């Protein structure tokens, strides 16, 4: 019997949105799925060796803040320089204290489990990204490459 297949498109390059693709891919692999993630647009940030991703409170009304700050802190305040790095540091600290894996750790677990990572060639060119900045094992392809795998997959997710 051939394995079940999970195909994911990762389009977001922020600390919070980096989690779903890597959590689902690593868990899918642990459950015996063959997994492929197609990274496109901002999702390509998740392939960088130095994955310097952050989370921004700016224009992010669904983001819970410490001390329920999102309820009383003026929206304009979220645009203050430095807010983004403060919120990113706080988010990372919170995740660590709750035993949530770091993105790097989850990505390593994915690689260990042989999750296939495909970078969208078109967006790599569009944003002038240097493939040498990416982790090893990444392959490059286009939409048709994604369909080759997704067409046979049992689950297909756009994140």
């Amino acid at each position, binding site marked *: 019997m051939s394995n079940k297949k999970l195909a994911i498109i990762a389009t977001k390059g922020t600390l919070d949105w980096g989690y779903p693709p890597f959590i689902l891919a690593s*868990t899918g692999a642990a*459950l015996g799925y063959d997994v492929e993630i197609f990274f496109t647009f901002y999702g390509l940030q998740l392939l960088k060796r130095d994955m310097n991703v952050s989370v921004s409170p700016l224009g992010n009304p669904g983001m819970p803040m410490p001390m329920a700050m999102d309820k009383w802190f003026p929206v304009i305040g979220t645009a203050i320089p430095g807010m983004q790095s403060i919120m990113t540091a706080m988010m990372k600290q919170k995740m660590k204290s709750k035993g*949530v*894996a770091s993105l790097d750790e989850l990505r390593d677990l994915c690689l260990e489990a042989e999750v296939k990572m495909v970078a969208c060639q078109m967006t790599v060119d569009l944003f002038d990204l240097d493939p040498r900045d990416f982790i090893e094992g990444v392959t490059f392809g286009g939409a048709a490459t994604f369909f080759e795998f997704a067409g046979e997959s049992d689950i297909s997710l756009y994140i």
Partner: protein
Amino acid sequence: MANFDQELDASGLNCPLPILRAKKSLAGMSAGQVLHIIATDPGAVKDFEAFAKQTGNELMESKEEGGKFVFLIKKS
């Protein structure tokens, strides 16, 4: 408490780490051997049920013990 061959302490770890660590431990064991897992993530209870169902490894025991969740999984 049944006998077990290997132990995994996943205390303090959150989803999906207990499952991923268990998978890794099981990979190094042989068929019929039993893995004893300790976790503190309440989500692990349902997750290990689902893990066992989908991987064919048998969940022999799942219980709460002194605020921790304890599982016995037999490798298929």
